[in-house]
């Protein structure tokens, strides 16, 4: 008795290579706003009839993200010009290499909670799953908020997007509040050999072999 598939894969199917583009396209178009909540403190969050444990969790997420996404300044004075005297702190070092000196960042003045599921108006779980499958992150991540020196009533994200002027529920376009780390990355540090050798051998179509 022969085993017809003994030496080869049971299947060789590509689930995503073809439909992926279609999936992404159908996700485009006018973006719907979703509800999220803005608070100064976890206690204030709980006072808005949210489960205290969820408030604490959202606050902890925001605190953890804070040193990664807060805008960075080379000295304290520049930071205080934007955020107010006494409202800046030393930023932790990033990466494993020695930094060239310390950086400063504004203090976290509140947090955005996008993940509390007990309220109506949040993205339905199914939608969230789709978004998570496509992008890997939830539509409105919990994140720190800041207040600028000249506008102390408005909560702003680390990228200076205003999200609310008072605590509580607010409407948000998810794409406007995706946290991005603050430091400027250097780029273009790989690929030079490919270019050099492509110039020497223009027919070479692969860096593999």
């Amino acid at each position, binding site marked *: 008795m022969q085993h017809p598939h003994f*030496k080869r*894969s049971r299947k*060789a199917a590509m689930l995503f290579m073809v439909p992926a583009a279609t999936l992404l396209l159908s996700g485009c178009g006018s973006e719907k706003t979703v509800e999220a909540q803005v608070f100064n403190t976890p206690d204030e969050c709980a006072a808005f009839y949210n489960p205290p444990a969820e408030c604490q969790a959202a606050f902890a997420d925001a605190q953890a993200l804070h040193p990664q996404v807060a805008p960075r300044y080379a000295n304290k004075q520049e930071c205080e010009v934007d955020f107010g005297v006494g409202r800046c702190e030393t930023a932790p070092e990033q*990466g494993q290499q020695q930094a060239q000196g310390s950086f400063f960042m504004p203090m976290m003045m509140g947090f955005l909670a996008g993940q509390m599921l007990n309220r109506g108006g949040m993205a339905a779980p199914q939608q969230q799953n789709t978004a998570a499958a496509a992008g890997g992150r939830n539509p409105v991540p919990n994140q720190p908020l800041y207040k600028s020196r000249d506008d102390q009533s408005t909560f702003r994200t680390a990228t200076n997007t205003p999200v609310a002027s008072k605590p509580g529920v607010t409407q948000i376009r998810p794409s406007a509040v995706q946290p991005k780390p603050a*430091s400027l990355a*250097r780029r273009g540090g*790989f690929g030079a050999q490919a270019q050099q050798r492509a110039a020497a051998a223009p027919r070479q179509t692969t*860096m*593999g*072999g």
Partner: protein
Amino acid sequence: MKKVPIAPRPGWQAFAESVGFAFHTIDNEPYWDESAYYEFSLAQIEDDLETPTEQLHQMALDLVPEILQSEEKLQQLGIPEAFWDAVRYSWQNGEPHLYGRMDFAYDGKGPAKLLELNYDTPTSLYETGFFQWVWLEDQQMRGALPSGADQFNSLQDKLEQAFAQLPLPQPFYFSSVADSQEDKGTVDYLMDIALQAGIDSRYIALEQLGDIEGQLVDLDGFPIEGLFKLYPWEFMLQEEFSSTLISSNTRFVEPLWKILLSNKGILPLLWQKHQGHPNLLPAFFDDGKQPLSAGWVRKPLFSREGANVELLTHSGERIFQPGPYDDGAYIRQAFAPLPRFGDSYTLIGSWVVGDLAAGIGVREDNSLITKDSSRFLPHIILG
């Protein structure tokens, strides 16, 4: 082992393009060629290719700790001294490897001869794992091939298992040079398999990789903790961000220690340790200064797609393939001619996933040196 003509599937080009195989034709020259196939017996596959592949793979792995303990060998392999510790660390830390491809000269009789290991950036993965698999299914459905025909090709199954089992950080990133359509096709295929294995997979062009204070980051500046790179280690070690490779908290696939095995210098080291092994060809380090004698091939330590390979047949005919890899040391290997089928010379690429043999791909070239202009032909196992 024989070559059998067969009618190509009508409309296969449009199908190829619809499933991401845009490089089936390169510069108006066919790359995927289904006007014929190669037929092997099960014994040829199992005894002459599968078993030696796993044995040679193990012999190569066994050399790694020996090389790492020897400054002389690290120097012979052209590994920059600044990275010796990093290479050692990647091995001692048990950083897992995904895949590799061995190239064999094999004519269906006698032992397959190992020409080289492509253990860092092996390509022709998609053609082997996916497109020739579909070709066989199609031709069987059309009644053009017997339903009992099989193929030595468990590549996709084994890659999917590997992605499911390897300890990979997530999200896991895949990278290739921006302007190589072929490399993007290979990476797309790997990402697709990784997604099927449940890995959160993302693409970033190699040139777009960022550095924030020694940490590799993606386009949004988030740390990249896991990176598959279809780009040679020996290039990365020479480029502007080379020090980032040491400082960054990133797990690389293939791991850095693979630079020892993707190196042609592994061939003389294998020969030193296993002289006379039926699947090995005599091989020696070579400074490139003496003229080559008949029956020998000279290859740079680092070279791809046959570039800068010089060959003297047993009758003294010289074949040289110019290329951009003339900046290193060389090895000299006894000449084992590729078998000739019609007008073409045929090379067997034998895949390893994890530590298991995972299938073959057959390439043909008009020359004894297999180059980037070679053609890929499907194969079957019958009887």
